[in-house]
């Protein structure tokens, strides 16, 4: 009977103040969607970093006038360098072949470039891509080196952008969360006020504190859980419409977001939504009911 009583009180409570409940659920849903999106991006950025940094190369382009001696010296030095994992030498012919492949859609460009115009290069894989700077400093003044280009610089820019989008989503989640918390606190106050007679009687006859508080706290938790479900729906819609829809052209660039990822992030959203609402309700009651 007590469980039934508590549950029916929860439903009555949410219904009694239905506009406030809806406002609470919507802000909660938006906040949790932002949180979920931010969490997904975090995984996404991690996956992409793994994927891209693994294949990253530093290219040391040699001057046109490089001598045989200079090239062999550099090769020996690179082979013995502890920072360097692998070294591939790309001669002019190979460079031209790669160039042709890369720009096969632009025959004019390919025709304009002659094989001996492209520089020879060493392509390096580093043991740790972060140590690019050391490699750069070591080899930039070596005889025969024209230019050193590190792909990770480029990637860093992309990742910086992704990280800032992620931070913006997180910040939006927090701001919305504050609004949601205030709404929860307010809803609980209104609920406690409208039930003040019952609460007074319950305190008088010695109902336990948890029994007095449970309907209010559960009311907030139910709202939080409904909010997180709506958030899940929003994320599913975002995947469906954005990633599989208008952004599908970028499929090769972005690592895919699977349904599994979204399902994996849902417990986080539901947990945060439920626990934070419960905590807020409980604290509000401590001040408001003094039970």
């Amino acid at each position, binding site marked *: *009977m*007590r469980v039934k*009583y508590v549950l029916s009180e929860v439903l009555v409570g949410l219904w009694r103040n239905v506009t406030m409940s809806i406002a609470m659920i919507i802000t909660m849903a938006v906040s949790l969607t932002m949180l979920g999106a931010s969490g997904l991006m975090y995984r996404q950025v991690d996956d992409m970093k793994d994927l891209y940094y693994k294949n990253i190369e530093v290219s040391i382009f040699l001057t046109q006038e490089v001598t045989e001696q200079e090239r062999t010296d550099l090769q020996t030095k690179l082979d013995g360098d502890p920072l360097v994992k692998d070294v591939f030498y790309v001669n002019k012919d190979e460079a031209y072949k790669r160039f042709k492949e890369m720009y096969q859609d632009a025959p004019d460009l390919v025709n304009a470039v002659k094989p001996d115009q492209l520089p020879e290069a060493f392509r390096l894989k580093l043991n740790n891509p972060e140590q690019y700077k050391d490699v750069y400093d070591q080899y930039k003044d070596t005889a025969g080196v024209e230019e050193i280009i590190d792909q990770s610089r480029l990637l860093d820019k992309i990742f910086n952008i992704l990280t800032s989008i992620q931070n913006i989503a997180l910040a939006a989640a927090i701001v919305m969360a504050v609004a949601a918390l205030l709404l929860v606190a307010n809803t609980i106050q209104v609920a406690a006020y409208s039930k003040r*007679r*019952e609460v*007074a*009687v*319950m*305190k*008088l*006859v*010695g*109902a*336990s*504190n948890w*029994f*007095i508080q449970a309907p209010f706290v559960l009311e907030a938790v139910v709202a939080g859980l409904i909010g997180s479900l709506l958030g899940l729906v929003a994320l599913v819609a975002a995947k469906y419409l954005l990633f599989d829809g208008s952004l599908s052209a970028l499929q090769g660039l972005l690592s895919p977001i699977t349904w599994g990822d979204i399902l994996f992030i849902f417990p986080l959203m539901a947990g945060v939504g439920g626990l934070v609402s419960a905590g807020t309700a409980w604290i509000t009651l401590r001040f408001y009911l003094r039970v």
Partner: protein
Amino acid sequence: MIQLEQVTKTYPKASRPSLDNVSVSIEKGEFVFFIGPSGSGKSTIIKMLLHEVAPNKGRVVVNGKDVTSMRSWKRPHFRRSIGCVFQDFRLLPNRTAYENVAFALEVIGKTKAVARRVVPEVLELVGLGGKEHRYPHELSGGEQQRVAVARAFVNRPLILLADEPTGNLDPDTSIEIMRLLDRINRTGTTVVMVTHDSNIVNQMRRRVVEIESGRIVRDQARGVYG
């Protein structure tokens, strides 16, 4: 049953104490009136017995439990051994007489089956047989107070506290309520009643403790009002 030992209570911002070195001892089964003018500190005693306010000095013992040092989380269970009636009845307006009494049982974990057995019995006892399904607004003041008494007594508490229970009732109805409290007292329940209704005190001829400005000025067995 109830001991107040040199109890002093000063509310914050008050210029003088509400209770000033008050000592009273009440035995099991007694019927005690606390009388005195408004603001004399009578109601503070009731609040102390309910563990609602704590004394600044002294000790309060109820049912063998030291209320002074009781932690607040133990309060709910402690209250189940005390019934309480107030001037303003404190009934739930959207529940019938039966439901008001049953509510008090159900929120402390009793089953509906227990309520179905006990509630009609106690409503009969207070003289409301046949009116179980009336709402408070369909009952007279005296009848509403009977519901409140039924609610306070349904758990068979050892102590019944009554804070001006006749304050809102006419003299005839007041006497009926007093008869009811008297009958409850005869079942062995200790009754502590705060009042300034002189008629009632004079008719009942029970122990009277008079308080003035926070001090006991009279403690008389079979006393009358001032």
